[in-house]
């Protein structure tokens, strides 16, 4: 042991160095991976659904099933035709009807993956089975998924579904028709088939501008005169215009901060380059070493006294 530095100095040195590293990392984390309010990349694709135009023909559901090779959910129809009640492991896209309690007025809603700008499912997925793919589509890779279902717990829109009745279960969710169509320069099946233009496909920036245009042309027509999805959960790539309250048609009230930001803002600093664990290990190591030596001396004395081997 070199007497040049004593234990206290060493310990202080470790703490100081650790603090400096943590500080440096904290400042370098300015360009963070999960900003509270993510900005959509310019090539982000989008869907705009306007329920004042939708006639509820469900052509999009048929097209979706066809494009994705999904079986019909015939639970309710006695085995006759596709009749899902909500998104499920056989349904990636659904048109639902909302009726006012007094019977006056109704509204449709189209549900599918929102393709968040900073998706909670992607942040939580342990092996990157779910990922933010090209053009911002959130896709699922069967060969990386362990079936932990964290995506279902994390998703604020209740989108990913698990094949509970399969031995080799998959996560089923809208993937923006990524493999089937986007990659072949085609728009998704649902937007392609929509006869009224209730759901349209385009760049997110274009569709957001278009939606705001519609609000500006007919103020008061749309709920809160705003686009759902512009800021919800940090912003989504599927945008909604609705004639009735968003929560009535099953679009949850959410803050504008991305869940990924909320969940990782502290840990991303602590775990950056493993600085937190390494710092903890350094401090613990110094203290344990000191206490270990003391314990060893005591146990040697005890062994001498009792004649019995000391137990760890």
């Amino acid at each position, binding site marked *: 042991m070199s007497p040049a530095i004593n234990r206290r100095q060493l310990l202080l040195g470790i703490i100081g160095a650790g603090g400096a590293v943590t500080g440096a990392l904290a400042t370098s984390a300015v360009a963070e991976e999960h900003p509270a309010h993510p900005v959509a990349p310019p090539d982000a694709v989008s869907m705009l659904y306007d329920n004042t135009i939708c006639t509820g023909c469900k052509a999009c559901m048929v097209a979706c099933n066809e494009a994705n090779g999904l079986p019909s959910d015939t639970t309710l129809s006695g085995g006759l035709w596709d009749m899902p009640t909500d998104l499920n492991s056989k349904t990636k896209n659904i048109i639902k009807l909302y009726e006012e309690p007094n019977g006056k007025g109704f509204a449709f809603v189209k549900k599918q993956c929102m393709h968040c700008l900073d998706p909670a499912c992607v942040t939580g*997925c342990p092996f990157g089975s779910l990922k933010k793919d090209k053009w911002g589509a959130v896709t699922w890779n069967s060969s990386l998924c362990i079936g932990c279902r964290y995506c279902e717990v994390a998703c604020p829109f209740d989108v990913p579904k*698990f094949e509970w009745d399969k031995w080799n279960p998959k996560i089923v969710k809208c993937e923006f028709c990524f493999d089937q169509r986007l990659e072949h320069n085609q728009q998704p099946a649902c937007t392609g088939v929509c006869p009224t233009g209730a759901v349209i496909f385009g760049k997110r920036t274009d569709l957001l501008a278009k939606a705001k245009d519609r609000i500006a042309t007919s103020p008061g027509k749309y709920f809160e005169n705003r686009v759902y999805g512009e800021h919800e959960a940090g912003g989504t790539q599927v945008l909604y215009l609705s004639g009735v309250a968003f929560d009535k048609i099953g679009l949850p009230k959410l803050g504008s901060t991305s869940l990924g930001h909320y969940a990782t803002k502290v840990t991303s600093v602590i775990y950056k380059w493993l600085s937190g664990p390494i710092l903890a290990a350094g401090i613990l190591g110094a203290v344990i070493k000191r206490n270990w030596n003391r314990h060893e001396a005591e146990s040697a004395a005890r062994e001498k006294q009792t004649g019995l081997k000391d137990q760890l």
Partner: protein
Amino acid sequence: MNRWKKLIEELQSVANHHNTTAGTHEEDGATLVNHWQRGVPVYGEPVVTPTLLLFAALAAVGFTLSLVRFFSPLGRFSGMNDAYAWGIWKTFNVMTLTALGSAPLAVGMAAWVFNRQKLHMVMRAALVSGFLFYATGLVALGFDVGRAWNFYSIALPWRWNAESAMLEISFCMPVYCFFFLAFENLPLVLERFYYTGTDQTKAFLRLCAPPLRRIYPFMLIGAYVFPLMHQSSLGGLMLLAGNKVHPLWQTPLLPLLYLLAAALCGLGFVTFLLLMACLRYSRPLDLGVLRELGNLLSYVCFFFFAVRFVDLLWRRQLGTAFALDKMSLLFLLETALILAPAVALRSRAVRETPRKLLNMAVLACLGGLLFRFIPTTIAFFPARHARYFPSAPEWLMTVGYISLGIAAFGLAVKYFAVLPGEIKDWNYMFRLVRRRRQAAIPEGEKLWPASLSTQ
């Protein structure tokens, strides 16, 4: 037959001798008070007892069902659904019960880091129970995931999503359990081999001991850094669930609170475990050690409460806390369970009365467990209306894993020097062994208490 009878009589006489000469015990009420000096196996008792068989049977049922589960889809087997995608295997066996299994972390850090020398004596009970909680929890996790065959990705770091709390847990927990915790448990296993082994084994183990001892303090570092990471990450899991978790439990401090709850449950559980085991196996108690555990438990409970209170104040949720609706009552119950032992254990009289200490430890454990379980299930409100109640197989498997832990602990205290006792006990044990050798029972050259069973 006669020889057996003779042996049993002899054992009885030695045991009686032991009891009558145990005169140094200090009477404190109805409880024998003494010093714990070293781990001593439970000896002179049958290994196979009806209780052990009961737990083994429950474990067998659980594992048979696990096997069925492996070949069955999850939906048919469990009450889980798309809204409540996590059932009790994950939320109870892993996220909740490993808090009780954090005794090696809590007691170990108190002993090795905060230099509470007395607590070294209870480390073995903490280590064995902690290992069993973790191991059974991990087994539960293995049957919970739907695509377990893809788990090999854990060995391919380039596939890791480093920011996922789930990844952190799936890496840290097995490594901690089967490497660090297993290593910490190694001395007590090798000790048995040493005392029961041949001269060759002994020589070999004597050779192994110094290097093991040399790396031990370094392994301790990992044994604390790893659980500090994953116990907090377990709380971090629920952060992503956002406002699906009721605002009384959804807080950015969840990781810290889960960690504190682990410390609280760890200390509480090891107190409970020692008191129960000493009661069951008629071991004298060491109130000096128990008092220390009670003292620390009280501080940790207070600290947990303080963090919880400041957090609610800061997030302006105190009104919600006292709204006296279902969730608020649940919160108040949980807080009362933690605050009661915190306050009561400040009293020396409570800390020194084993019965009261036991009660307080149980309350603290229940409070900590409730805190860890509630946000995952009871205060978890998915986007659409749904219900989750564990199915019969889920219950049976959960009970099975816990039973396996209990049965294994029951065996461990008899085969290994887990429970603390006196040097006198240790010496009696070897005297018994010598007697037994002289009785020259043909089979059973083993020199360890389990072979002394009267069955």
